[in-house]
């Protein structure tokens, strides 16, 4: 380095001092931000602790105390309400009855519900968080007036917003949302199938007609979800639709779910189609599902056929048949015991396995309140 290129000491001093100043300023900023944040958290916690007692007052059922608590919450300013809102929303999901109605009316009285409806309609990519929050809040409130706008939001370009809208529609529970929700399993701008399925279950029996129609949809995923929900919601009137899907759907996944659904419905009409599937040259997975469904269904008449199935060369078919026999009760257990004694080695192994598990489960169950326990309790109370 030559003398001509050396940095003057004054410049170095200025740079060092500037850097030290910047570091000091940054330190002050960090400390100030932390102090402010702690102060805000402390204030929020104090407000929440106080407001929590007001919210609990709403559960008393005493008109005067409820009115007092409501007026105190109504008097909160915007910032205080914002701090309290997450607590109230959290409580909404945990209670029902009068307390829930009181909590919902707090949102109506403060204009928060109306604000959320406007938020749902706010456009633009940068407002997707606002739309998703609005959908989530309207769902938590169970706001039935919002179901149509929420169906429109299912078309939102943001996946997070679509998911929030689907969940909200499930919480609101208006059966008319079934078709739009099923539509989100196909085409563009889809919603994950587990989210749609759970929302459809929440809609209840009113969604049955749309679900039955969806069993003939061209998209296999739509058919599979529809079949699954019909079984889980106990839609007994759909049993023939499910039997038709079991017999002739183009997708094996749909047929497997139809077998499970028929088992869950527990209707006699399902026994013969399930036995036909087991006897026909179907895939092992489908036959295994049908064998398990016979046990769920409680088909006592299928006991001899299930007993023979213990000898099936396909492991899962024989294993599920053993489980089904156990679920059928005494007749099934007798068949299993018979196979343990007289059956060939592989069939006996399946029977022994389920009988052993059943005996372990039985041993874990308490034998009820014994006289000794009752005596002990009386002695303790003396």
């Amino acid at each position, binding site marked *: 380095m030559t003398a001509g290129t050396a940095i003057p000491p004054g410049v170095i001093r200025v740079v060092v001092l500037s850097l030290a100043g910047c570091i000091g300023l940054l330190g002050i900023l960090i400390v100030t931000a932390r102090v402010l944040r702690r102060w805000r958290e402390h204030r929020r916690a104090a407000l929440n602790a106080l407001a929590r007692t007001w919210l609990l007052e709403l*559960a008393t059922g005493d008109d005067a105390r409820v009115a007092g608590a409501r007026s105190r919450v109504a008097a909160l300013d915007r910032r205080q309400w914002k701090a309290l809102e997450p607590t109230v929303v*959290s409580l909404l999901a945990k209670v029902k009855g*009068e307390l829930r109605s009181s909590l919902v009316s707090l949102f109506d009285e403060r204009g928060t519900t109306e604000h959320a409806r406007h938020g749902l309609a706010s456009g633009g990519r940068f407002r997707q968080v606002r739309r998703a929050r609005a959908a989530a809040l309207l769902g938590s409130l169970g706001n039935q007036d919002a179901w149509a706008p929420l169906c429109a939001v299912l078309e939102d370009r943001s996946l997070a917003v679509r998911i929030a809208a689907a969940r909200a529609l499930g919480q609101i529970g208006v059966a008319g949302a079934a078709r739009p929700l099923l539509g989100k399993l196909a085409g563009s701008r889809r919603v994950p199938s587990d989210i749609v399925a759970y929302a459809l279950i929440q809609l209840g029996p009113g969604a049955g007609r749309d679900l039955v129609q969806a069993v003939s949809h061209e998209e296999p995923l739509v058919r599979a979800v529809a079949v699954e929900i019909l079984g889980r919601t106990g839609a007994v009137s759909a049993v023939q639709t499910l039997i038709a899907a079991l017999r002739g759907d183009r997708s094996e996944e749909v047929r497997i779910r139809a077998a499970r659904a028929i088992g869950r419905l527990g209707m006699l009409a399902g026994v013969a189609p399930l036995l036909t599937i087991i006897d026909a040259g179907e895939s092992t997975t489908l036959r295994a599902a049908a064998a398990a469904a016979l046990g769920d269904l409680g088909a006592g008449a299928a006991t001899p056929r299930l007993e023979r199935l213990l000898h099936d060369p396909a492991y899962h078919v024989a294993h599920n048949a053993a489980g089904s026999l156990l679920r059928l009760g005494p007749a099934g257990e007798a068949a299993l015991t018979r196979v343990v004694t007289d059956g060939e080695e592989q069939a006996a192994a399946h029977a022994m396995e389920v009988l052993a598990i059943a005996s372990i489960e039985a041993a874990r*169950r308490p034998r009820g309140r014994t006289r000794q*326990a009752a005596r002990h309790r009386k002695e303790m109370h003396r």
Partner: protein
Amino acid sequence: MVTVLLAEDDADIRDLVTFKLRQQGYEVRAFEDGLSALASARDEMPDLALLDITMPGMSGLDVCRELRADPATADVPIILLTARAQESDIETGFSVGADDYVVKPFSPRELVSRVQAVLARIQA
């Protein structure tokens, strides 16, 4: 005074149930986990136990099983609290000796009625 043992890890529900039962004149011993609740029950037997099924560590079902297995506490009436999604647990709950169950979300008023009904049934 009738003592109710409450095991519930959700602070909102714990506070709400405690508040509502105390309002009705019950003494409530509330815990946020199953192990503490079980220790309390063994230390001093409650008149009724209200147990959430899903708790970290020891679940309500485990506490129920332990209470029923011990002759000193086998006779305590037990109500289970369960989320709607865990309704399959109800069957298990009854098999381990529960007397009744309440599904979340629940009405605080209904919960009190269930507590009163179970106590009345046991005392009859």
